[in-house]
């Protein structure tokens, strides 16, 4: 087996390729520039959903504050772009030229110190990747070292999101307030508002998404990934085996934060502004549903989840704006009750076996991995108790381990 195969099985590889074809070939050919840009925006949410697959699906840590990290990444990028848009020539009318317009309206006469480094693009990139991770690290150390988990963690992260929103809105001289940072124009002189630029950004976004997908795949397939699953199931046993449980949790939480922040930065680039609405509690929970719909254990599912929910949202609200919230609410309840493993579970349980009937046996590896038929866990049984869901997911792990072994055997 080649090197890729060491962490992506053939079956997984085929699904990666299908997704790549959809994102890089089908979408750009089928959609006009406007719709393509919208898909690009949806895909930035897929980063957050992917982060949630890691920390919620595998690590068992449900964060209701992923919007905070998405927002941090987005704001870092927005600060850089805003500084570029506020060159002294562009802002000559202001009482203090050279600072962003909203600062001028708020009587600031010089750039605040924490804005200064964002003149540098290199610093901005580093900040996007590192700042959210540091923030996640602080929260993570405080919480996981004290063995706070589950529900409490969810509620505290939600409160963090609420605090940050109020803070950003209140400090409008430094942050742009409720309007956010708007009217972003160029990246190193390259106009990001043109259709051409948006198309290019779409592909950049797609490539970055795949980088993150591969990274996530790598984490899951590594020893760390298996430890995470073990911890999620029986944390005490892992601890008694001598592992420092909290460090693994902190790591995965930071990784999820960084991935979300990349999505936020790409969002700012493609949409052209950043505002505190993405940091709030509502969007953060909405992002959890992208992940839940895709399948909380499926990294590719995260992408499909983000695409499907947002696509439905746009088309629904174009035709029946009144009904959109009903549909969204029903989706939440339906996914949780009937399909706890989301689209991925649906595929494994119903679609893959059906496809198998019609696909020649030689190509079965495209449809499913060969152990799939051992695991026809119906949605209803897994919905009844956590116990069976646990078995379900541990079966998943066992199976993929076997998959690995078989490849090693090859």
């Amino acid at each position: 087996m080649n090197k890729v195969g060491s962490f992506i099985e053939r079956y997984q590889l085929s699904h990666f390729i299908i997704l790549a074809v959809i994102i890089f070939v089908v979408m750009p050919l089928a959609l006009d520039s406007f719709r393509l840009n919208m898909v690009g925006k949806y895909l930035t949410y897929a980063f957050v959903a992917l982060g949630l697959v890691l920390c919620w699906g595998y690590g068992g840590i449900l964060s209701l504050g992923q919007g905070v990290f998405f927002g941090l990444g987005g704001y870092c990028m927005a600060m850089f772009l805003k500084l570029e848009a506020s060159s002294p020539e562009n802002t000559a009318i202001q009482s203090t030229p050279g600072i962003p317009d909203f600062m001028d309206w708020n009587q600031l006469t010089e750039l605040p110190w924490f804005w200064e480094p964002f003149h540098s693009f290199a610093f901005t990139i580093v900040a996007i990747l590192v700042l959210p991770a540091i923030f996640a690290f602080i929260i993570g150390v405080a919480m996981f070292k004290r063995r706070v988990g589950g529900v409490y963690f969810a509620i505290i992260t939600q409160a963090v999101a609420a605090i940050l929103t109020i803070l950003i809105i209140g400090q409008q001289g430094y942050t742009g307030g409720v309007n956010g940072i708007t009217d972003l124009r160029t990246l190193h002189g390259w106009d990001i508002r043109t259709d051409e630029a948006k198309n290019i950004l779409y592909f950049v976004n797609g490539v970055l998404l795949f980088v993150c997908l591969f990274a996530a795949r790598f984490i899951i397939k590594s020893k760390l990934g298996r430890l995470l699953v073990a911890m999620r199931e029986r944390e005490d046993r892992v601890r008694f085996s001598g592992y420092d449980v909290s460090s693994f949790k902190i790591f995965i939480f930071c990784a999820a934060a960084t991935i979300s922040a990349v999505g936020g930065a790409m969002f700012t680039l493609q949409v052209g502004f950043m505002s505190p609405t993405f940091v709030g509690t509502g969007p953060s929970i909405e992002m959890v549903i992208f992940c839940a719909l895709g399948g909380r254990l499926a990294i590719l599912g995260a992408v499909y989840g983000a695409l499907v929910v947002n696509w439905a949202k746009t088309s629904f609200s174009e035709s029946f704006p009144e009904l959109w919230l009903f549909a969204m609410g029903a989706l939440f309840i339906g996914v949780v009750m009937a399909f706890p493993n989301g689209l991925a579970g649906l595929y494994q349980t119903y679609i893959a076996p059906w496809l198998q009937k019609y696909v020649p046996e030689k190509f079965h590896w495209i449809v499913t991995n060969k152990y799939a038929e051992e695991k026809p866990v119906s949605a209803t049984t897994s919905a009844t108790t956590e116990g069976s869901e646990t078995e379900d997911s541990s079966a998943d792990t066992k199976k993929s381990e076997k998959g690995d072994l078989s490849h090693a055997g090859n």
Partner: protein
Amino acid sequence: MFADYSMAELTSIFAMQGFAGLILFSVFVLMALGLAIIFGQMGVINMAHGEFMILGAYVTYLTSNIFSSYLPESVYGSYFFIAMILAFFVTGALGAFIEWSVIRHLYKRPLDTLLATWGLSLIMQQLYRSIFGAREVGVTLPDWLMGSYAITDMIEVPINGIFVMILTIIITIAVALMMQKSRLGKQTRAVVQNRPMAAAVGINTERVDRLTFALGCGIAGIAGSAFTMVGSTGPTAGQLYIVDTFLVVVFGGASSLIGTVASAFTISQAQSTMEFFLSGSMAKVLTLLTVVIILMLRPEGLFSLKMRR
């Protein structure tokens, strides 16, 4: 900053500020009691708690309309009591239905109840919007609840504030008695502590679950009904309460009613004191931040049994 004011002025301001804190305390307790039962006792994260409260508010609104259109004016003053009782039963009944249709399938997956009830809250919001319109509705208060009672020239206390406080005391005592003394309360605690054993000694655990959930929702309904006096009634008003409410419950130590009351007291006094010295936004941020930091240092909350895994 106090140099400009006389001693008498300062005393009365501090008295009134203390009273403002007490009203805030009552509001927090009312918000959190229902959730403390549902979340603390049953472990269900009910994100639709705010929407249940707003349902109580809408019931009050409807009752007030019915009273003013169909009944003689002399009985209008008493509509508020009827409305509260109705609010309790309507939201309680809806709660029982939701428990039966959704929640009971999810007891083993607390994080999933969070998602499902969030979906429920979206549906309820849109229902309110379709039925009552997107605009806020104005609930007219009976005359005896309006205005204020002047203790001295400077100190005036709002009558509806006193009403909310008395109501809070009554409901808190009723809930505490019920949990400690009544059959349902004992059964609930038994089920929480050990479900299989409780079932083995003949407690109908499903029925207990349903009644407990309904009770929590019913109390939310009463809270919503009371809040028509101080807050707004609109489709999305419930969202405003949810973060605060959860923080109060968690800060108190989820499984303890005394903890909830104590935490509501601490948070409300901190917030109203800070509001007086700082701007409102900063006071809010500082309060929430303090609570979060304390929770990070002391995750089990103020009052709680040690329940580490």
